[in-house]
């Protein structure tokens, strides 16, 4: 009986010691809750920002502006990493603050990326319209060029034939 009690006490002491020795990991979920939730939310916001940037890219955004957004994404990612590190060390407030900042950056990226996507879509659309509008213009230019080119070539050929005929007549006159 005494042995069982001792075993139970030792087990409890062991659990308590473990929870103190491994900060963050061993802390109760209720204590970690705030920091964990903030990091999770920061991750969700980051993924949203990433998708928004990819949409802007698909819409044909220029590389310079895209690079700026990607740098911001990496900044948000580093903040999430720092938040996770702080959480593991048991600094819940620090982790929540870091995650909150990351969320702010990600939200900023989303709004910038959406604006860039709309601008790029419009520019791409105008580009396509211009390209296809140039088709009949180019065709017309080629047609006019071909028409007058053909006429010139034909006149040149007729002139050549005529010159050949005249020179042939002169030769026959000289022979007679």
């Amino acid at each position, binding site marked *: 009986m005494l042995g069982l009690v001792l075993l139970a006490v030792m087990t409890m002491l062991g659990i308590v010691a473990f929870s103190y020795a491994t900060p963050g990991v061993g802390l109760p979920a209720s204590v970690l809750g705030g920091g964990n939730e903030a990091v999770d939310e920061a991750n969700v916001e980051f*993924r949203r920002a*990433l*998708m928004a*940037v*990819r949409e802007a*890219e*698909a819409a044909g955004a220029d*590389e310079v502006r*895209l*690079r700026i957004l*990607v740098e911001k*994404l*990496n900044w948000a*990612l580093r903040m999430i*990493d720092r938040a996770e590190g702080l959480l593991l060390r048991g600094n819940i407030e620090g982790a929540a603050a870091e995650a909150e900042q990351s969320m702010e950056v990600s939200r900023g990226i989303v709004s910038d990326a959406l604006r860039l996507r709309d601008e790029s879509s419009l520019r791409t659309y105008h*580009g*396509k319209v211009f*390209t*296809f509008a*140039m*088709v*009949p213009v*180019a*065709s*017309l230019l*080629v*047609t006019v060029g*071909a*028409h007058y080119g*053909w006429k010139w070539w034909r006149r040149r050929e007729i002139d050549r034939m005529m010159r050949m005929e005249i020179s042939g007549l002169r030769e026959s006159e000289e022979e007679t």
Partner: protein
Amino acid sequence: MARLSEDLKRAVTIFISATIVFSTLAYVAVTPRPREQFFQIYVLGETGKAERYYPDGNPNILVGRVVRWYLGTTNFMGSVQYVVIKAKLGNSTIKAPDDVNRVPSPAPVLLEFKKVVLSNETWEFPFVWEIREINVDDGVIYPTVFEINGMVFRNSQVGALKGHNLRIVFELWSFDPESDRVMFGWRTGVERRVAWLQIWFNATIAGT
């Protein structure tokens, strides 16, 4: 009149032909070409080339001996990608990643490197590591403390007899929008591919 109609016929023919040709060209110009989507992953030695992966060419790594590699990946996916490179510590018995079933290695993760990479961008960074502490248990050597890029990492699971045939496995993971999570490898259309690398080494104690 007959002459004019012949000219007109010819002009119409040329116009239609030119329109077909220019429309095709315009379509090709505005339509992005489909191309193969993939990532490239590589590890270079201390000289930044595919050579000198171990100090003095000796794969027996002593405690405190610094090993310098360069790890890199290039994004040929045609879009911005979120890439994670996981460095894992394995031995000869822990399974390597499975290329056929696209399963990552069950070896414990030492460190993760994360970055959002632009299309056609190469992300290269140094991977400088050393074994700080070793634990010997019944002939099995456990490299218990690693220092990687100035950060300390602990290992208690992976050891090897006489410290022989340990390996660091680098796995390439990427964000998959379909499943909304980071997955081993990447998806190209309906296909999934994986990429990983490993470098073997022996953990040794001075005098052995």
